[in-house]
């Protein structure tokens, strides 16, 4: 019944490791990340800043920049390992069957090219069609994401759009080839609440209609709560908890997830101090051995200094912790 175990997923990431070999040392930006997402499903990938969400996304598209490299694991897209594809094969996949949407709509569109150029080139990069046909397709897609009078808008430059419109254009570009997978990296973080709601509405509709699988990267649990089917929580380059949205949010097993949920103000009583996770987000360059969270964790014991396995602790629930917060402890946490 869960997406994770049902029919062959669109994408399955197994033990992905992406490291950056910098002058100052090796940055293990992504260090053991596994999840999968099926057709028409939305996976919410949450975690704090620097926890490796973006790098995971880029790894899937094969866009990790120097000095980064995928050093381990596999990224199975319909069973095909993306980590082993050639650059040209990846190029043909990108924007075609796997698309990506970036966080900052101000920065993702090339400021000096017109929208039509940027859309048409995407169409033509993957299909042999005439410019006219490509334009037609671009126009239709713009209409689909709710941009009024797409014909005129095609002739505009990005700066002539508002932030929300720009993000819609970016989404339209991602949708041009009706991809099977979209990696959305915090696409609404830079937008206003009302505009964010508009975008979320569009995206929801599209996924439902086209059966596209989606990885929604964010640090905002609230967005994921409303949008995603499954959720994967990352901490310091590792997925620490994974499962369907409702159980994870209602009954977090990992202390970090619990802390995260606990610190959301609306979960707290007005005027009372918020539940907080002490300490700071760790520096990925100097991670302590064992569980990276243990320095901030109230349940940490000696055993946490050992490498923690990622394992299924309940049906459809995987957690990386020696001391998962089973309901026995829940009362204490909530």
């Amino acid at each position: 019944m869960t997406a994770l175990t049902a029919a062959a997923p669109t994408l399955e990431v197994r033990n992905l490791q992406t490291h950056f070999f910098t002058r100052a040392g090796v940055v293990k930006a992504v260090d053991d990340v596994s999840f999968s997402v099926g057709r028409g499903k939305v996976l919410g990938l949450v975690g704090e800043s620097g926890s490796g969400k973006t790098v995971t996304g880029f790894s899937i598209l094969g866009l990790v920049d120097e000095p980064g490299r995928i050093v381990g694991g596999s990224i199975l897209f319909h069973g095909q390992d993306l980590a082993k594809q050639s650059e040209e094969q990846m190029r043909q996949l990108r924007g075609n069957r796997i698309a990506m949407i970036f966080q900052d709509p101000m920065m993702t569109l090339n400021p000096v090219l017109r929208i039509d150029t940027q859309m048409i080139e995407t169409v033509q990069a993957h299909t042999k069609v005439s410019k006219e046909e490509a334009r037609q397709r671009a126009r239709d897609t713009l209409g689909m994401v709710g941009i009024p009078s797409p014909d005129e808008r095609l002739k505009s430059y990005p700066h002539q759009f508002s932030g929300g419109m720009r993000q819609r254009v970016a989404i339209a570009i991602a949708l041009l080839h009706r991809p099977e997978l979209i990696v959305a990296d915090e696409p609404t973080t830079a937008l206003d609440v009302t505009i964010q709601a508009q975008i979320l509405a569009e995206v929801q509709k599209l996924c439902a209609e086209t059966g596209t699988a989606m990885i929604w990267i964010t640090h905002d649990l609230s967005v994921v709560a409303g949008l995603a089917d499954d959720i994967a929580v990352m901490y310091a380059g590792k997925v620490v908890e994974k499962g369907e949205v409702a159980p994870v949010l209602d009954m977090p097993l990992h202390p970090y997830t619990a802390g995260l949920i606990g610190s959301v103000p609306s979960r707290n009583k007005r005027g009372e101090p918020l539940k907080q996770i002490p300490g700071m987000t760790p520096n990925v360059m100097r991670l302590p051995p064992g569980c990276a969270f243990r320095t901030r964790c109230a349940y940490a014991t000696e055993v946490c200094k050992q490498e923690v396995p990622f394992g299924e602790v309940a049906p459809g629930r995987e957690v990386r912790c020696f001391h998962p917060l089973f309901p026995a402890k829940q009362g204490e946490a909530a």
Partner: protein
Amino acid sequence: MSLYLLRRLLQAALVMLAMSVIVFVGVYAIGDPVEILISPDADQMERERAIKALGLDLPLWMQYLSFLGNALRGDLGRSFVFNEPALQLILQRMPATLELAFGATIMALIIGIPLGLYAGLKPKSFGAKCIMTGSILGFSLPTFWVGLMLIMVFAVQLGWLPSTGRGETVDVMGMRWSFLTWDGLRHLAMPALNLALFKISLVIRLTRAGVRETMLMDFVKFARAKGLTNRRVISVHVFKNIMIPVVTVVGLELGSTIAFSVVTESVFAWPGMGKLIIDSINVLDRPVIVAYLMIIVLMFITINLLVDLSYSALDPRVRLENK
């Protein structure tokens, strides 16, 4: 747009006014043109006659006012030395200088952009390091020295190119242009290269810096995420963005190239405006100096305007009204 033009015109007028005052006072302070122009045999009476003939007997401010009056009617005065309208004198020499400056600019772009692209895309490669070090040489070598070396090697030793001077010219639109003839081009090659050297370096650097910065931009990554080929990403997305600084700087440099052609023109005996102005400064031919500076300022302002226009063509974010 018209607001912008008007603003520019007003600025130009102001700058030119300031310039003419500076030159008037400057030339007056430097020395006495008559002392320089007059035949040594001349006696005192002859000197006084010449001073009167050139209108230098009036107080400076009166000379300036009468200049201003004439200038408003389009008459910038007559050269002391050539007894020809200063403006005409300069315009006659302008094609030669323009040809040189444009030749150098084109050369700089043709050579500089590919090298800069390479150095920017592969910053760690050996080739890139060579290019960058080489470009420092372009900045460092004094123009006059390089000019002479070019002449020594290509004209005197190898005899491939004519040493100096301007080649055959063809009349187009009432001006003489030499770049339309083979002989003219051969004459143009060395001085243009000499003048271009600095700019080649500049273009290389700008291009490289632009490439390096642009490559880090999100939209480049997004373009790659769209599945575009590397070639398209570089030749369209990156290139169009780096052209903005390159065009701006090279455009603005065109002005100083014209000014710097002074050195190249004197080394290569290139009969352009630069040589004229040096000669004119040497004999304190004030009408020519003033007219030259007026023209240069006008040219600078026109070039700036054109640069800004092309800027807005290249960068749609820039609207001229907003400047």
